[in-house]
């Protein structure tokens, strides 16, 4: 196996917020009955974080669980651990109607950091990003300009955002433009 290559190989830029594409991150789609104990255990077992409720996202470093829809979770963990984790989960869920799939390489992951991070996203997504409405622990799947994306907060002033790998460059260009110096809005 060669070293896995992320979509933009870690491209980054500095504006009134810092935008950086992250290296490969392990991501597993888990579909099933989120009320089922087997599903809960399979997810928390490999992710090592609390099971998320509706639109919740629990992340600790590279590990995390995100609520994607009433029957779908995204499991996050180090890229190298994915094959083993998929096997473990599939095993744990045998006999349970569910779907486990490695989607690590189908995505690109970005970090938007700094006091202006909220504003950068508020220029591109039809989402209320005021601190009162969006805070750490939440995830929002939405539209970033013209493509689907999902983001959550990894800290008070840090967002992590995923989009499909094929549009990574488009999303990077969007974020770079939105964070360009001179574009500060001063709203939040």
């Amino acid at each position: 196996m060669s070293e896995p290559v992320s979509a933009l190989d870690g491209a980054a830029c500095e504006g009134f917020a810092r935008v950086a594409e992250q290296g490969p991150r392990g991501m597993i789609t888990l579909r099933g009955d989120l009320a089922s104990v087997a599903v809960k255990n399979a997810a928390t077992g490999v992710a090592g974080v609390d099971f998320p409720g509706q639109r919740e996202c629990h992340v600790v470093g590279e590990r995390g669980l995100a609520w994607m829809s009433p029957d779908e979770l995204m499991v996050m963990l180090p890229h190298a651990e994915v094959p083993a984790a998929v096997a473990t989960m599939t095993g744990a869920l045998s006999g349970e109607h569910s779907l486990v799939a490695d989607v690590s390489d189908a995505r690109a992951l970005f970090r938007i950091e700094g006091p202006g991070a909220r504003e950068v996203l508020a220029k591109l997504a039809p989402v209320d990003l005021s601190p009162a409405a969006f805070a750490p622990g939440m995830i929002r799947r939405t539209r970033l300009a013209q493509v689907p994306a999902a983001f959550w907060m990894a800290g008070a002033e840090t967002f992590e955002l995923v989009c499909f790998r094929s549009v990574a460059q488009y999303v990077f260009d969007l974020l770079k433009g939105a964070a360009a110096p001179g574009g500060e809005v001063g709203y939040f």
Partner: protein
Amino acid sequence: MLILHCPHCGVDAEETELAPGGEAHLKRFGPGSSDAEFESYLFHRENPRGVHFERWRHAFGCGKWFIAARATDTLEVFGTYRAQTAAPPQDIRDAITAKRPGWAWRDLA
């Protein structure tokens, strides 16, 4: 620019996050049905100037389909509910009746 509440993920989503799917609660007619039934299933629509039940998909969000009860003349939304519902739920119908006494949709009121 509509806002609709997605009953699956709880987001009040703006129209640009959603994909419209046309009239809801259509009964599918397949092989064995008459030409008239099939034509009606595929093409005939209520298209009311008033209360309408229509399908929406939270396309940029949780990806789930839901149904909205909406007035096509004022764009008032009386409620939304999951697509896995055979007929408009009573509470939605009551909400409509409260606002629009005597409304009718197909044989419903």
